[in-house]
């Protein structure tokens, strides 16, 4: 019989040594640019993708803005110096020829997606999710395009959108996240390679969930995808995003930009399960996930809802935000962020209330274990004109182990007398009493911890679409079971 402590150590060991199960690397031929960033590389990216002149101009403007900017240092993160000239800014699976149907996709890529459990194959697509798969920098395959097209929904790689719907893209690209917004957004604007584009026409509710899966496969590359979602008046879309990467000793950079635009009465639900490779248990390797996500509730009565489950990445720097411009618009942010080993996360949201009677809700649950640092950082900004607005925020942190840190940095600015803002946060470890109670009922310590953590995160997990909720729950278990101390 092991003593309690030995048992805990054993469990903790099992958990921390758990392999990153998506850490395989596929042997697919890729075409890569030489490392480095300069105007020439940017011109080359633009050229290879046959982009119109205005896109190149956008990229170059962003590049010149980026050159003048400094990396943000305000986050509670220790970021090793990144040499942006050693990164490869473009890598794509070598094209055999233009893809017409799924049969023509490189079988090895298909195998990769199979391993990831992505329903890329339309034959087996019982789950009814339309997928846009981005492999390294290039969108490989988008499913269900035909069905969507019948309803006027556009769901395609952004490279295609630039080619086929230039006016739409031109109107909205950079309208929510300007190219000079911040260091990483500027970098993305300069070198973005692919990503997804979604357009929902007036009055259309997307009949299925749209999903993109991102995977960084090649070594030494950065991934810079760009997602643009536009929902016209009265439309609705639920969009899912998942990410994985192979196990590597070096750090890789992922700097994406996501822009959401919700017109009058429109609703966008954006869910992310982020499971980039977090590095090994010594903190070696892993993805730097420096992402700018922002939505705007442009029209009255519009709604944007962000849900994120963050379990991966060595360093996460991410603040999915909403600008509530339309009157009576609603924004929500639900987040579970789990850090273990040497992971660092500084994540949260910004709710900028401009319109009247706007409402926002923030539910953030942080869980830190191992030697990790987990911070919530959020802004609630109620402008003078946003009368009768309402914000409710809860930011809870759970600590597992005495080597980790959990931090909360809320910023609350209120500029009118008719709005109500409430913020509360707690930090604690799993309550001994709850554990005792569950164990009394015959659960072993592990299951008890699992049950408590799941219950703790439930409020957020409930917001995820079914398939993602299951995956997220599994991820939580992998990351945490038994790490009670």
């Amino acid at each position, binding site marked *: 019989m092991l003593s309690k402590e030995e048992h805990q150590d054993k469990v903790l060991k099992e958990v921390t040594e758990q392999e990153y199960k998506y850490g395989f690397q596929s042997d697919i031929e890729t075409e890569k640019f030489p490392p480095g960033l300069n105007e020439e590389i940017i011109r080359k990216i633009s050229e290879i993708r046959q982009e119109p002149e205005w896109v190149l101009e956008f990229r170059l403007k962003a590049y010149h803005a980026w050159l003048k900017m400094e990396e943000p240092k*305000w986050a*509670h993160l220790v970021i090793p110096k990144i040499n942006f000239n050693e990164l490869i800014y473009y890598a794509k699976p070598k094209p055999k020829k233009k893809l017409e149907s799924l049969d023509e996709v490189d079988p090895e890529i298909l195998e990769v997606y199979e391993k990831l459990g992505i329903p890329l194959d339309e034959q087996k697509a019982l789950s009814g999710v339309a997928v846009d798969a981005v492999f390294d920098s290039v969108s490989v395959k988008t499913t269900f395009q035909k069905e969507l097209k019948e309803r006027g929904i556009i769901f395609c790689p952004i490279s295609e959108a630039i080619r086929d719907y230039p006016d739409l893209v031109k109107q909205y690209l950079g309208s929510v996240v300007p190219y000079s917004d911040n260091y990483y957004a500027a970098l993305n604007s300069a070198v973005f390679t692919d990503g997804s584009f979604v357009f929902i026409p007036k009055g259309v509710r997307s009949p299925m969930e749209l999903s993109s899966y991102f995977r960084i496969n090649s070594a030494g590359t950065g991934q810079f995808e760009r997602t643009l979602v536009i929902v016209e008046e009265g439309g609705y879309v639920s969009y899912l995003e998942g990410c994985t990467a192979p196990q590597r000793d070096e750090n890789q950079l992922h700097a994406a930009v996501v822009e959401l635009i919700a017109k009058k009465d429109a609703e966008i639900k954006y869910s992310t399960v982020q499971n980039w490779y977090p590095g090994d248990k010594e903190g070696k390797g892993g993805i730097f996930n420096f992402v700018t996500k922002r939505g705007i509730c442009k029209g009255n009565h519009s709604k944007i809802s962000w849900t994120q489950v963050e379990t991966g990445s060595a360093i996460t720097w991410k603040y999915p935000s909403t600008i509530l411009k339309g009157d009576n618009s609603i924004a929500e942010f639900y987040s579970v962020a789990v850090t273990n080993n040497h992971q660092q996360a500084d994540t949260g949201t910004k709710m900028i209330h401009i319109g009247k009677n706007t409402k926002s809700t923030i539910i953030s649950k942080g869980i830190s274990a191992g030697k990790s640092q987990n911070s919530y950082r959020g802004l609630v900004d109620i402008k*003078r004109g946003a*009368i009768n607005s309402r914000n409710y925020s809860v930011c809870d*942190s759970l*600590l*597992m*182990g*005495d*080597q*980790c*840190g*959990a*931090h*909360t*940095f*809320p*910023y*609350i*600015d*209120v*500029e*009118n*007398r*008719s*709005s*109500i*803002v*409430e*913020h*509360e*946060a*707690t*930090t*604690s*470890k799993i309550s001994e009493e709850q554990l005792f109670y569950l164990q009394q009922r015959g659960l072993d310590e592990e299951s008890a911890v699992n049950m408590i953590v799941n219950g703790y995160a439930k409020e957020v997990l409930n917001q995820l679409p079914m398939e993602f909720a299951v995956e997220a729950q599994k991820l939580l278990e992998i990351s945490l079971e038994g790490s009670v*101390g």
Partner: protein
Amino acid sequence: MPRTRKLLEQHIIDFFENTFSKQIQEEPGFIRKARIEAFQKFKEKGFPTLKDEKWRKTNLNRLLDSYYHPVAHSVIKDSYENDICIVPELKTKNIYLVNGHYAGDFQELENGVLLGSIKQAAGKYPELVQKYFNRLTEKSTNPMDYLNTALFTDGFFMYVPENVKNFNLQISQKLDAPVDALINTRNLVIIEKDAQVNIIQCDDSNEHRSHFATFDSEIFVKENAELNWYKYQNINNLSALFSNSFSEVKEKARFYTNFYQLNGKLLRNEQFADILGKEVEVDHYGLYLVDKTQQFDNVIFISHSSEGSYSNQKFKGILDDSGKGFFNGQILVKKDAQQTNAYQKNDNILLTDKAKISSQPFLEIYADDVSCSHGSTTGQLDNEALFYIRQRGISKRDAQLLQLYAFTGELIEAIKIPELIEPTKDLIKKRLNGELDVCEKCILQCTVPN
């Protein structure tokens, strides 16, 4: 007239280099050294700007409309005994700090308490002062502390030996310069083991001059000692006062503050407390009543460096007209500070659409067996409650006042000196009613019936 920040900075730098550095030749070496180091830092950094994280909501440019004369020597009266501060039925020792000077003699009291000017203390008890002086402020990165250390003219020193109980001190700080002035006051408070001290402080000013004042205090509360500090700030609406305190609190000690910000152009209180033992209790409470174009800031940092301690921050504000408030509270629980209980609460009422509040309740936690929480609310008066009160025949204005007054109750209830409760209530009522002006004498004088 220095209309820009650069000019004001240059003006201060020139004053230090050309004038002040000659006046401090006679000072003990450790003080001079601290001054020169701090001055160098100030010269390098200058005043805080909107780019500094903790100053993003506080624009110092609004202080640039005056020409501040650095006060080196100041004409002060022989005695301020006539400006008595009366807290009825409370026996206190009274001291006066006027324009950065200590008015009065150095006192060695029967119970062993040393009380007087910090400059005189440095001459009389150099070892004692040297042991503590600048130990905590030295680590500060706030330019206001550089300024204070470099340029303080004087301040008070208090040493309370072991076991002295119920020692009550009343401090009147008067900003009463004949011209617009830069005033820097520096204080040192040492409370030895098992001692118990109450401090009641009033910050007061004349009506017509702009003052740019810093007031830095280093506070050492030893094992099982207790310090309760009440402060009432009521200066004119042309003046700015930056009061920063740094404290070190040892095992089983209690450090309690309850500050009332009532009037002033810009009042900013920064309190840094370091908890260095078990079973320590640190409470920082504050009320800010802001109107016109006033701005009141509170920046609180409580560091739990040791296990098994308790801290609580409670700050409440009412903001009227174009008043601005800024609250930044931080709880830091270090790795070994297990079994920490730390709480933080900031509540605000905005009365107009021009008033602004920025609230930043931060938690930074590196230990797992802790219970920490924070909360922040911003809202307005409860309409239903107003309606209920008005139904009882009370006018709208009175109903509002009643509710606002009730909102402040939590802080008044936390006052531990019974004699202070009524005068404080009275002050708040007057302030809410718009009747409280700058007193010619001390604030609490206002409470004496005619």
